[in-house]
């Protein structure tokens, strides 16, 4: 039985999700865990109305994770149907049963203090497992990697 912790990180190709991915890859390296990178596919992306992100994002994400020291053998890329919040919450229950969710802090449509438009706040509200919200890009770049 594999008992190494599983870290799930949401990735959509944005700068903030890249920072979150880099942080999550560093963490999994430090704790000897497994990293699952989740890319949620919504209605518009399925229809090709947002461009073909999946192929490009996969290559970029795996490269970022490897660059942060992640063990390629312990890194998995997953494409999940749904909005980002639902797709990530699904990773917290069996059979996925992640131990930690990691997301960037972006919320382009959000208003301060509102769950609407903010995946990170919504996850923090709804998740039954710990959630790490990695600070916005310019701040997080300075922090770089976890301890």
């Amino acid at each position: 039985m594999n008992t190494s912790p599983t870290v799930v990180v949401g990735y959509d190709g944005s700068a903030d999700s890249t920072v979150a991915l880099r942080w999550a890859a560093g963490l999994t390296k430090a704790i000897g865990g497994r990293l699952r990178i989740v890319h949620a596919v919504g209605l518009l992306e399925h229809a090709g109305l947002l461009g073909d992100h999946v192929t490009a994002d996969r290559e970029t994400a795996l490269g970022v994770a490897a660059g942060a020291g992640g063990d390629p053998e312990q890194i998995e890329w997953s494409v999940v149907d749904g909005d980002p919040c639902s797709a990530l919450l699904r990773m917290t229950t069996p059979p996925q049963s992640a131990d930690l969710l990691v997301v960037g802090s972006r919320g382009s449509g959000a208003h301060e203090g509102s769950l609407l438009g903010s995946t990170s706040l919504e996850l923090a509200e709804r998740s039954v497992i710990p959630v790490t919200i990695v600070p916005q890009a310019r701040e997080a770049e300075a922090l770089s990697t976890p301890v």
Partner: protein
Amino acid sequence: MKLIVAGPTGTVEHDGGKFHPEQQARIFSVMNGIRALGLEDEVIYPQTPKAGLTDLTRVHSLDYLTELEAFCVKGGGDIDPDTFARSDSWNAARRAAGAGLAAIAALEEEGEGVAFVPVRPPGHHAERDRAMGFCLLNNVAVAAASLTARGQKVLIVDWDVHHGNGTQSIFWDDPDVLYVSTHQFPLFPGTGRAKEIGGPAAPGLTVNIPLPAGATGDVVRAAIDHVARATIEEFSPDWVLVSCGFDAHQADPLGDLALSSGDFAELARMVNEFTPRPGRLALFLEGGYNQIALEMSVVDTLGALLGLHTQPAAPTYGGPGMNEIRLAVADRHRAMDTLQTTMSSVEGEG
């Protein structure tokens, strides 16, 4: 048979821009279809006031409604990569939900006919406290809950290409609502497996029939016949509401099923058989993003229900999915056994 059209709503407000597929032009296509039926003055257009909090809080949390209104008052924004709200979207969503209530009231007043609810934003992805999948308020759920509050039993048939996760979750444990969905799987929103059958208070009253890309109309009809019909007949609904998405059409850009507009006519006839008497069927527009297919589907669906000679498109046959139907039956049986075992053990512990 009389046609009641509760709408249109969303023809001006709730504008996501011309590149968003859930746009005002959809309603114009739908209304073109209604005009093409040639019924003219015979169509009844009831007043469609906005839904009030009493009706909305039967299916949505007050916190969510308050937050959605505040979000819109501040100008709105993108809720997720698919879903937007604008400053006028709160009112647009309340008008859409209110139109469903008006449709029910008009059917009760007329005592006959069929109601169609051409509204946007659509509703079946909206959960109790979440907007998603273009949906802000769950229009069909608001209407169904208004009926169950009066002791009525409601069948909701959802033939949109996407699973109605919101409707399912709202009525998951409600013994007065039977939810039946045919949908493409895998596809957004990622829910709708056959093993999702409802909660302890409503075991088996969620019926999901996931179908593969390319499934044709005969497969969808067989799915309802083989997986859902017995449950529907045993449930014996007082009302039948349809989450009437037309994005299972072969020309739709958001799905990969292969139905023709004529298939929706066949499905409409089939669903109409489940009504206990005339005047108990209402169809709520959900998806449908190819304007020509949308107009044709409205003509063929309503034409079939009204017994008009509209020469519907030929139904489709021969697509994949029959094996998935067999698997769905088996998955439901297994899930029912598991749920009953769990309930028995809980009762035993009690």
